[in-house]
């Protein structure tokens, strides 16, 4: 019979029954956890986007280590929260994973009521991290973080920033920055990061957040100032200071990794972590990641969970200040 820790409070009789049924057709008595059906990797965004690319990359690299197919399923909607809700309430039997770590995990639940909590997931592995870079229009005079803070303090509320939508991680990053710097700016949401960048270039808003790759290209062309990253320095643009360097305790970035429903048994998580880690070390994954400008950022499941929690808490702290101001 399979070994199973019974330490999980909610993994009761039903779970055991399911496990027993599943084990009926299963092989040797000493086998540890094994997937019985295809494993679904749920992506909360449309095919072709950054999150989807990460998912497909890790799935294709890890496939050879799994006896069952890894299937990427797109359930786009509501900034990724639709998929998160689905996975949070899925059977915790190790056959459903979510690509998490971005807006849906660390940001949105702090802004509005969602039908899930960050605590309803447990980390499996972190696959990549994506730095976020604050940019302003070249020639706007806002060429450093000090210039921005100075202008914002001289004329409170005169500067505006664009985000990829209300409650998203770009919005939250600016909120945390505002709180840390003690400034007030106007929030102008757009449908995604690209239109917000276009609005900065057209002079309609003062700043936006983009990826290091985009920042590199736009700075080289002399279109924008990259004034700061919202966590530590990014390898692609080493000259751009981080907000932490400038003395503001901001540590927000867009992470991508795999999580499972919280009650998924330890054995299943360990099984998958081991294989996905092997995949991340494979040559194939490394070359493809380098090609697609995906910055690998391995963390163990527990560390990934902690990192998300820290980010979420810092956003929550910034929000509670906001709320008091609004009331």
């Amino acid at each position, binding site marked *: 019979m399979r070994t199973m820790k019974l330490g999980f409070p909610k993994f009761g009789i039903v779970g055991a029954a399911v496990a027993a049924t599943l084990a009926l057709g299963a092989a040797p008595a000493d086998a540890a956890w094994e997937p019985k*059906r*295809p494993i679904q990797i749920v992506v909360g965004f449309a095919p072709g986007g950054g999150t989807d690319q990460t998912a497909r990359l890790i799935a294709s690299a890890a496939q050879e280590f799994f006896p069952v197919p890894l*299937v*990427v*399923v797109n359930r786009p909607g509501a900034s990724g929260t639709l998929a998160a809700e689905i996975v949070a309430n899925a059977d915790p039997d190790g056959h459903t994973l979510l690509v998490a770590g971005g807006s849906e995990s660390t940001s949105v639940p*702090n*802004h*509005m*009521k969602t039908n899930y909590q960050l605590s309803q997931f447990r980390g499996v592995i972190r696959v990549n991290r994506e730095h976020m870079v604050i940019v302003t229009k070249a020639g706007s005079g806002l060429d450093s973080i000090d210039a921005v803070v100075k202008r914002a303090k001289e004329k409170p509320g005169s500067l505006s920033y664009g985000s990829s939508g*209300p*409650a998203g991680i770009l*919005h*939250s990053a600016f*909120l945390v920055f505002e709180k840390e710097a003690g400034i007030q700016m106007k*929030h102008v949401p757009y449908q995604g990061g690209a239109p917000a960048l276009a609005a900065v270039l057209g002079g309609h808003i003062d700043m936006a957040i983009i990826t290091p790759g985009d920042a590199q290209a736009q700075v080289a062309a002399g279109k924008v100032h990259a004034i700061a990253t919202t966590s530590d320095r990014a390898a692609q643009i080493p000259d751009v200071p981080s907000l932490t360097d400038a003395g503001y305790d901001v540590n927000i970035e867009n992470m991508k990794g795999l999580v499972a429903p919280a009650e998924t048994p330890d054995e299943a998580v360990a099984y998958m972590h081991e294989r996905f880690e092997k995949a991340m070390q494979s040559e194939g994954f490394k070359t493809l990641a380098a090609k697609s400008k995906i910055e690998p950022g391995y963390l163990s499941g527990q560390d990934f969970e902690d990192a998300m929690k820290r980010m979420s808490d810092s956003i929550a702290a*910034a*929000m509670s200040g*906001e*709320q008091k101001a*609004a009331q």
Partner: protein
Amino acid sequence: MTGGRAIGLACTVASILFLAILVPGIDANRFTGGGMQFYSVGPTALPYFAGGLMLLFSVLTLITSGQERPKPAESGVASASLWRPVVFILLAAALSGGMLIAGFLIAAILFLLAVFWIYGAASKPLALGLGVAVPLGVDLVLRKLFYIPLPVAPFLS
């Protein structure tokens, strides 16, 4: 009563309900969050505006549609029996809901066969052939060629 009047009346009622019940409900479930401030136009402005327009034009439709001649298409409806569209819509709804329970393939085959049978397809072998081949084809193309997973029956997976 002409079709125009009927739809005018229905839309009048719908827009009144929308304005009186649904739109005021928005503020109640507004979340508390950062960036709460907005300028001039808030979340309820557009719903009130759109609902108001709908009410206005519903009433206008109700008033003016008596003036026009009934269209030939409209007189045709009365004679056509109502069961046909209703049964078809129910079948389509059953297909949509049934996909989750029985999977796309089985639900789709049942749907086609039911439609062919109820609406009297002339050739039985052709109906049977199409009823199986088309769902199978759609399923194969979407699943194998484009990797889009349609729902699969739980007992088959």
